[in-house]
Structure formats: C-alpha cells, structure tokens
C-alpha cells in the first residue's frame, strides 16, 4: 500500500471489526477499495440485487431495512453493511438507503472472503448472528474474576470435623475447641455408614445453649440445626457466596458423592475476598437499632461499586444486593419483634419484585407484603402487624430503600392479609385476568418469603405454579402487559434510535432494557410451571421444557446479562463520581463496545417479544413507552 494512503487505513483501523486487524490485512483492504459517492435519498442496495461488495461508511449515514420494509438499523461513519448477503448467495438481504450524502468505501467480495478466512475476529463479527458477538462480549468480561472461576474446594483447608449426634453439649464444645473450628458436623451413625444429620456452630452455642443456660449434659441433637443447606464440591466460590447470602447461613458443608468433603465458613470467603459484601451482611446482624443499620447502609453502595470493579456478573451483584436488602429487612423484623413483643399469630414477611428475583441494584424502592396466619382476627391482631410493618418500612426507608410509590408495602392493609385471602387474590388474578389489574400485580408474581413462616410463601408459589400454566387467558394478558415496554432499536450517533425512526437523547436502561426481559421471562416461566424467581434460573427452567429453543434462551440470557451489566456499570460510575445513580443513559456515556453490543442485545429482546406475542396470541402492535 502507498504510504500516502495512511489516512484511509487509519480511519478503517479505528472501527470494529478492523480495529484489531494486522497491518497487512488492512493494507489489503485499502488497495482493494473502490470509493463511491451517494447522494442522500439514493437506494444503495436493493433487495435481492446481486452485490459483491462489503460497504464501509467513510462519511454520511445509511438506513438498513428488513425484507418487510421495516427499519432495521441506522448506521453511520465507520460502520459496515452488505455483509449478510455476501455470506450467502451475494444477493442483498437487507436493503440500504443513504439518508445523508455518503462516501462509501466498497471492499470487494474477494477481499471480504480473504478476511473471513484469515481473521477470526472479522469472521465472528460479520457472521453474526448478532447473538454470538454478544456472547463473546459477555464471556470476555468475565474471565478475570477469581470468585467466578475458582471452585469451593479451594477454600477447604482441612478434613471435616464431626461427631456422632449422640454426643452431649459439653463434649461437642470440647471437640470444637480442641480442633479450633467454628462449626461441628453431626453424623447419624445408626446406619451402615455415617450420614450427615446436622450442624452446630459457635453462634448456636452462644444463642441456644449459653443464653438459655442449658445443662452441659443436654444431647446435642436437641439444639443442632437440621435440614442442612449444603453445596456441591463442583460449585464455584461465588455460588457458595450466593447460597450463604440467600439462606443467611454462615457455614456450608461441601458435598461430594453424598460424602462431606469439608466445611466452608463465611470467614473463609471473606478472607478470600476481604471486602466481600458478605462482610456487610454479617455486620447488619450485629446492629441493635435503626440508627446503627442506617449507619452501615452507607456501605451498601461501596460494596456494590467494589463488586462491579471486581468484574462480578450481574447475577452475582443482583443476588448480593438482594441478600443485603433481605438482611436489612430481616434484622428490622427481629428488632421490631424485640420492641413490640412476639407476634400474636404466625406470619410471613414477603419480598416482592427485584428483591425476590435476586436482581436488586442500588437504586431501588421497597416492595413487600405480609401473609398472616388464617387465625387472623383484624380487631385483635392487626394493630400489632401494622405497627411491625410500619417499623420495618420506616426502617428500610432510613436505610435507603425508599417507600414504594405504588404502595405495595405491608403497611397497606390490602397487602397485609391472611393466607386464605392471598390465595383468593392470586386465584382471582389468574382466573379473571384484567389487563389493568395485572399491570399493577405483575410484581406479586415475583415473590419470596424472607422471614417467619416462609412456608406460606411457598404455598402461594405452589398455587401459582398449578394454576398459571393452565390458564391461557391469564398468560395472554400477562404477555400483553410484557409487551408494553419495548427496547429501543439501537443507537445512531448521539441519539437513541426508536423503531419509528425518531430520536431520543436518553433512555431508561431499566424500563427499556432489563424490565422488558424479566417481564417476558416471567410469562414463559409461569407457562412452564417454574418455581424459580430469578430470571436466569427461570430461563434455565424454560429451556428444559423446550418451550423456547436452547439457542434462544441462551441468547436471551446473554442479552439480559449484558444490559444488566451496562446498567450496573452506569450506576457504579455515578456513585464513584459522587452523583446519584439512576437508570437514564445517554448514548455518549456508553463506550463503543457497550453501544455496539447493547444494540445486539436490544435486537434479541425485540425478537423475543415478537415470539412472546405469537406464542401467547397477545396480538396488537407493541407500544413505545
């Protein structure tokens, strides 16, 4: 290549997929280029026309259309088009029209093929589906995090320390002291081989034995915890962390082929990652009043930013934040019960929405409800539960979880009802669906019992799972609601491009990004009878039922992950710069990497919405919000 053409090579080398290309390939591109000028309004590529050129926009702007004539994309300087047809039969699949005067560098088919065969990056880029490009973007981000890549077995420092369930309290304490462990596994030795039956921890000894002044001869089986939460030896450290956060346990037996390999403690993970959000969680339980909770709630944002900077994925961050939020609620409930006395009848405190889905971020309001025992007599009991609900709600507001603007809180009498009423609510929503009613009650279909008789919440989940999958009308209404919020088409220069070709300056990454995805996943999840609440877990359940193709489910997972992580980074950046985090993003705030892959992600969401409309017969055009 002539050195005098450097200007041209440099321009190309700034843009994907040419930005990582070796010089000799770039030189080959430049010497093959034919430059052409198109006036605004000119049809550059016609549908079905033979085309032997990859088109690179040196200046100007081009609109790309679908076969149906629908606007597919609008692209500008440094972007390419025409590749779809080149890969197949050299016939134009996506017509292109100049919307401004354009200078186009046309790269001949021969060069295109050479690049495709010799440059993997280039091949990945043009081969699309947009989706695989997104996948490599998602996986590229994650390879660095050790929490994500290291297995729990790395944390096991010693053989498990155990004793038969028949030992007495004092003996158990002695074994723990001698071995220097904070948890003792208790084995049922009555069968052929010992079987893990329970666990006792330092904290249990303090709270259950010492506080109640139990005699040293008390059988350990009377105070041990049973129904253990365990984790497989094949799990990753972050999964152990999520399990601890979710279940509020500080010790996890690690199992391999039904045998205990060891025990990992919260402190092991904290040691592994000294500033883990788990540390914050354990701190929450040490606070004795709202003031103390409010004080440490300031650390929530630090913890969030730290996880982002450590390259945690969105599932991990969402779970950690939800775990923290749950811990605040739980501690407030404990403090409330201390203040107001024990509850007159059993109850369950439910988290709804993002907290229930384990998808909470830092900008969040509180969505909660109370399910009371069916022995509930309003005149006798409600004063207590109102006071408790108010204590928790006010406390959460103090800690940065703002009151729910839609009044979906346990302080609202409508959402503080006995189990039977709750069952009626759900039955009515599912049997007599009304779009308006469902619009507001969507949030109740993401629920999680976080305190008290959590079995009530499980009963409600069972009812939903049994009824929803059989009610086509309900699913249709739910699907229709899920189509109310659509993703933007993508970006064009410093604007957000809408389907009607209009421009916006900013867009809401929650309303136009993550929410439409979790909404549509919820519909499929209910249709296939999944009990999961988390969107990623729901997707896994959906994929198992073949309701959605594996590929589609995988693409949707990648899209949700990418949109979430961009949203998360956007908020983390605001916090680091001392601004209030929000969900509103201007395209110029995004890196070229984020812009390009977000566009792919939106495309996937849009396709998934089309499938949803078709699958549940939800009809009508999607409405832009």
């Amino acid at each position, binding site marked *: 290549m002539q050195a005098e053409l450097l200007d041209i090579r440099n321009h190309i080398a700034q843009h994907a997929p040419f930005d990582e290309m070796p010089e000799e390939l770039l030189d080959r591109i430049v010497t093959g280029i*034919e430059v052409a000028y198109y006036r605004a309004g000119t049809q550059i590529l016609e549908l079905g026309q033979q085309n032997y050129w990859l088109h690179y926009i040196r200046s100007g702007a081009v609109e790309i259309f679908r076969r149906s004539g629908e606007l597919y994309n609008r692209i500008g300087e440094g972007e390419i088009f025409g590749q779809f047809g080149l890969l197949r039969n050299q016939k134009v699949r996506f017509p292109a029209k100049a919307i401004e005067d354009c200078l186009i560098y046309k790269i001949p088919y021969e060069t295109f093929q050479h690049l495709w065969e010799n440059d993997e990056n280039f091949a990945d880029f043009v081969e699309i589906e947009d989706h695989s490009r997104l996948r490599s973007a998602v996986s590229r981000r994650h390879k660095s995090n050790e929490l994500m890549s290291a297995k729990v077995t790395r944390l096991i420092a010693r053989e498990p320390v155990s004793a038969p369930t028949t030992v007495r309290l004092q003996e158990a304490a002695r074994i723990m002291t001698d071995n220097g462990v904070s948890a003792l596994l208790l084995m049922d030795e009555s069968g052929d081989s010992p079987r893990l039956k329970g666990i006792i921890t330092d904290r249990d000894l303090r709270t259950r034995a010492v506080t109640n002044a139990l005699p040293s001869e008390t059988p350990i089986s009377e105070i041990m915890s049973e129904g253990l939460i365990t984790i497989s030896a094949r799990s990753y450290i972050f999964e152990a962390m999520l399990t601890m956060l979710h279940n509020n346990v500080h010790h996890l037996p690690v199992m391999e082929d039904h045998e205990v390999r060891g025990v990992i403690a919260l402190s092991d993970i904290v040691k592994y990652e000294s500033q883990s959000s788990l540390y914050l969680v354990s701190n929450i339980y040490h606070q004795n009043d709202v003031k103390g909770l409010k004080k440490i709630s300031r650390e929530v944002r630090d913890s969030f930013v730290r996880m982002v900077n450590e390259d945690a994925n969105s599932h991990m961050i969402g779970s950690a934040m939800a775990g923290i939020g749950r811990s605040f609620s739980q501690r407030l409930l404990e403090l409330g019960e201390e203040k107001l006395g024990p509850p007159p009848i059993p109850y369950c405190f439910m988290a709804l929405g993002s907290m229930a889905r384990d998808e909470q971020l830092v900008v969040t309001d509180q969505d909660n409800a109370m399910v009371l025992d069916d022995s509930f007599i309003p005149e006798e009991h409600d004063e207590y539960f109102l006071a408790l609900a108010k204590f928790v709600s006010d406390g959460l507001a103090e800690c940065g979880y703002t009151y729910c603007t839609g009044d979906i809180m346990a302080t609202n009498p409508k959402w503080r009802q006995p189990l039977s009423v709750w069952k009626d609510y759900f039955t009515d929503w599912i049997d007599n669906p009304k779009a308006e009613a469902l619009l507001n009650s969507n949030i109740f279909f993401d629920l999680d019992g976080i305190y008290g008789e959590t079995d009530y919440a499980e009963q409600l989940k069972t009812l939903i799972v049994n009824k929803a999958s059989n009610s086509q009308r309900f699913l249709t209404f739910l699907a229709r609601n899920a189509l109310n919020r659509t993703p933007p088409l993508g970006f064009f220069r410093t604007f957000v491009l809408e389907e009607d070709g209009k421009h916006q300056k900013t867009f809401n990454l929650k309303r136009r990004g993550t929410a439409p995805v979790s909404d549509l996943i919820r519909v499929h999840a209910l249709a296939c009878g999944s009990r999961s609440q988390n969107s990623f877990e729901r997707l896994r359940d959906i994929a198992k039922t073949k309701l959605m193709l594996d590929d589609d489910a995988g693409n949707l997972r990648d899209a949700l992950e990418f949109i979430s992580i961009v949203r998360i980074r956007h908020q983390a950046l605001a916090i680091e710069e001392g601004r209030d985090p929000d969900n509103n993003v201007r395209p110029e705030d995004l890196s070229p990497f984020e812009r390009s892959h977000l566009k792919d992600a939106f495309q996937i969401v849009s396709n998934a919405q089309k499938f949803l409309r078709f699958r549940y017969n939800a009809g009508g055009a999607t409405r832009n919000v």
Partner: protein
Amino acid sequence: MSSVIKSGNSKQNWPENYRKGAEQAKDTRIRAFYEAGCPSPDTPVRDVPLVALDFETTGLEADQHSIVSIGLVPFTLTGIQLGQCWHQVVRPRLPLHKTSVTIHGITHSEIENAPDLEDVLDPLFEHLNGRIPVVHYRNIERPFLNTALQWRLNEQLRFPVIDTMAIEAHLHPNRNPSRWQQLMGKKPISIRLADSRLRYGLPHYASHNALIDAIATAELLQAQILHHFSPDTPIGDLWV
C-alpha cells in the same frame, strides 16, 4: 443557469486535436497518449474513463518552479479504484524552497534520491492514456506537465481537463459578496478543495499529499455530478 463550464478552450475540437497530435508527435510516449484517443464531446460523463491528477510543486509558475510529486488515481463516476493509484516523488530542477518543504511533507533526502520526471514518464503515461484528467484548479497540472515535457522532450502535450474548481466557480458565480453584502455580514464562498468538499458532506483528510489530494478531487467530482449535473451530462459540457 447554463450547465456548460466555459473556458478559452471551448472552441477546441479535442478528438481532432488528438488525431493531429498523434500524427505530429515524435516521442513514442506522446504519440501513444494521443493515439489512445479522446472521447467525442457528446459522450455521457458516466462512460468516460477519468484520472484524478494532483502535483505538488515548488511554486505556482510553471516556467519558474518545478514538480515535486505526482499523485493520480484512475476512476469513473461509479468508483475510484484505490488499488490503481500511483504516487511518485520527482527531483525538481530548482532547489527546494524551505517553506515548501513543510507544505509537502517530503524530506530533502527523499527528493535527493528521487528520479527525474523523465525517468518516470512510462508509468505516468500508462495511467494517463485513454483517460480525461481531473484536477482542482487547471492552472497547475496541465501547464507544469506541458512545460516539463517541453523542456525534456521538446514537445508539447495538449489535452482537456475537468476542473472541479471551475465547476465550483460556475456554481457560485457571486461568491464574493459586494461591499454592501459584506457589511450585512455575508461571507465569501471558498472554492478551495477542502472547503468545496465540505459542501457535499465529504470527509476532511488530515494529511496532504499529491495522492490524497487527487483522491479528494475524484470524490469531489463524483459529488458535483450527482448534485448539480447528471451521469448523462456530455463530457464536452464539463471539460475545459
């Protein structure tokens, strides 16, 4: 507005001139140039092979200054083939003026090692033959080439050119505002290459060398024709 670009050459019969030139030429290269022929003036510009041509020179006077570098790129209305471009530094007869060194970005050693124009006439003509040259400002390339050939071969080379600057001048006849208009804040319209390109949405090139300027000129002609003329415009309306 008439769409004919006027010049002192308007009455020339170029195809006939080429035929005569071929008969009278002594140098084989000049004869080959003329023999490649010139399209009839009524040929649509879309059918005419073109070559954008740009010289960097030591000054503006053909009889006092010299060519330092030549950039050219063959093209048609539908495409400019970068793979066929050609760039050549040549040794000027006169010493390089200091200021022009910085303008051209060509170093002394490059020039000292450069061949004389005569040594590169073969590749030069190979690119020119059978094509109508396109330049931005006709008073450089044609007179400089003519003078250089006169000097070296003792023969003239006469040919039509399309002048993108003349086209801009034709499109903006009143580009210099009257004193009254100047008082009202009206600015003169520049018909320099970079400024003209801006009016067509053509990109800015950071570097300046004979080749990039030739490409820039080719792009400008494509834009001019699509905006103000038509691919069917007879070449005779455009050349000067």
